[in-house]
């Protein structure tokens, strides 16, 4: 059971490892970033649309042929009054809607034209700047994946490559998308694994990765608890040492070493200059760090999984699975020695 736990941990780490690192690094970026700049709002300012218009000049709604509407707003765009007819709209602004503008003085349809879009864009920008191009985009809009309605895109020739998006049905500035914002959006895309450009985080890819990561964390936690129970992780390090006789077979040298009773034999030997072979770093999964104990030491599940019955019978155990406190005299074959007692 515990072996399965470790195997699972290994393969899950391979599956989610890179994404886990991406989550952590982008998370760190969100922690450190300048949120106003990241939203693209460094140069954004409010556009004043309201102006005094003689109220008598507004055309009565009853004189217009208006299709059934959920609501009608009186809007000002650059000083001119408009009726905004909302036939159908969702809970969020970006959702598909049926909304159009009428000139509130003449009653004629007055879709937001390029001149207005360009003027609003310039007024919404703090600095004096020139426009390279303006065009009306239909969704999907690459920079704003959630958007489901047409927007004007006004491209500025500033140093930060700003594109200003303005809602066709209201003249409202939706976003200043500049290089700062593009970096933030990339970080969000990576964090949300939104590689299909849905603009959100409720999709199957990330749900599968989240489940896998949860299992990875759980197997890791179980492993830690197991190590804690085995006395290899203690909350308070009390320094108890014990002397152990260690015979190194390659060099045929015997040392008497003072080892920490509460840390694993594997770690204790490293601290004393004897490095045993290992590829799992003392996790009990590679089976490389075997030592021969001359006294009786109970075999753990990892010992049984990695060592043959014959080896177990001869007293072989994994150094990472036992504490110095359990042994008095051992034989090892080291990978590296820097030991001078």
């Amino acid at each position: 059971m515990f072996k399965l736990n470790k195997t699972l941990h290994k393969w899950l780490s391979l599956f989610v490892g890179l994404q886990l690192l991406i989550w952590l690094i982008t998370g760190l970026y969100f922690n450190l970033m300048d949120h106003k700049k990241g939203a693209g709002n460094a140069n954004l300012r409010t556009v004043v649309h309201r102006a005094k218009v003689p109220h008598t000049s507004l055309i009565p709604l009853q004189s217009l042929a208006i299709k059934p509407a959920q609501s009608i707003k009186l809007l000002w765009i650059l000083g001119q009054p408009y009726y905004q007819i909302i036939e159908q709209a969702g809970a969020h602004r970006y959702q598909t809607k049926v909304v159009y503008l009428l000139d509130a003085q003449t009653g004629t349809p007055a879709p937001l034209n390029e001149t207005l879009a360009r003027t609003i864009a310039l007024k919404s920008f703090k600095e004096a700047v020139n426009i390279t191009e303006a065009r009306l985009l239909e969704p999907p809009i690459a920079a704003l994946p959630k958007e489901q309605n047409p927007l004007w895109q006004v491209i500025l020739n500033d140093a930060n490559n700003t594109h200003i998006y303005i809602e066709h049905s209201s003249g409202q500035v939706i976003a200043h998308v500049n290089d700062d914002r593009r970096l933030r959006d990339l970080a969000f895309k990576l964090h949300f694994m939104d590689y299909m450009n849905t603009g959100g985080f409720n999709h199957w890819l990330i749900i599968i990765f989240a489940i896998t990561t949860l299992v990875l964390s759980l197997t890791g936690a179980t492993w830690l608890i197991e190590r804690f129970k085995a006395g290899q992780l203690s909350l308070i390090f009390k320094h108890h040492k014990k002397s152990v006789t260690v015979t190194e077979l390659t060099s045929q040298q015997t040392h008497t070493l003072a080892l920490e009773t509460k840390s694993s034999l594997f770690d204790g030997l490293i601290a004393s200059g004897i490095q045993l072979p290992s590829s799992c770093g003392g996790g009990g999964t590679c089976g490389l760090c075997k030592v021969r104990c001359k006294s009786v030491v109970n075999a753990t599940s990892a010992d049984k999984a990695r060592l043959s019955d014959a080896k177990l019978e001869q007293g072989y155990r994994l150094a990472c699975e036992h504490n110095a406190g359990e042994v008095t005299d051992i034989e090892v074959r080291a990978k590296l020695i820097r030991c001078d007692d």
Partner: protein
Amino acid sequence: MAFIGIQFLIWSLSGLYMVSMDIHFIHGESLQAQTKQPIALAQVNYSFSNLLSEYPDAIQVELTQLLGKPIYRFVDKNQRKYMLNAQTGAPLPLIDKDRALLIAKHNMRGNNSIASVQLIDDTSTLPSELSTRHLPVWQVVFEHYSSPTFYISQHFGNIVTKRHFFWRMFDWMWRFHIMDYDDGENVANWFLLFIALLSVSAALLGLMLTYQRVFKPSSTGAN
């Protein structure tokens, strides 16, 4: 390093909750009935022009409806809220308890009965899930295990926000995810920075181990 494991567990649990629950459901959009009747324009005897002559400073003027009757909503330059009867132009009184209950029932998709209703009009009784700009509001809680709650503006009679168990849970998950345990609003907290830095190194070390174990298996190991 071992303690980082706890935060990894918290991140994966809270992350899983947030990605697997549909965000529109979390925001209570499924609680509210979406069938909206068109405004009865024939009844609108008080025009936008009448409104502007009486309230020259009006902004955000909207002709809409409340419980089937056409109304105007707008604010003045001091953000004071007004609601008028669109048939007569008469200012409408603040929403009382009975009207609040009617509005709540009218907007609720299900047939749940009301568990509680109370007026929240000052910051001392303000629940943390509600912004002060919405005050004063009626809080209407429905009978259901997820405690669906509508907050209804006393000035405008509209539902300013909704909550239910799953949204409140989401907010807690968010707090755990960004490790901001006081108000859950600040991603730029030093605690997260510290743990995230440690975690990046832990993950890198873990990946090295994975690389060692998976791509460089040693044949001299077992037995």
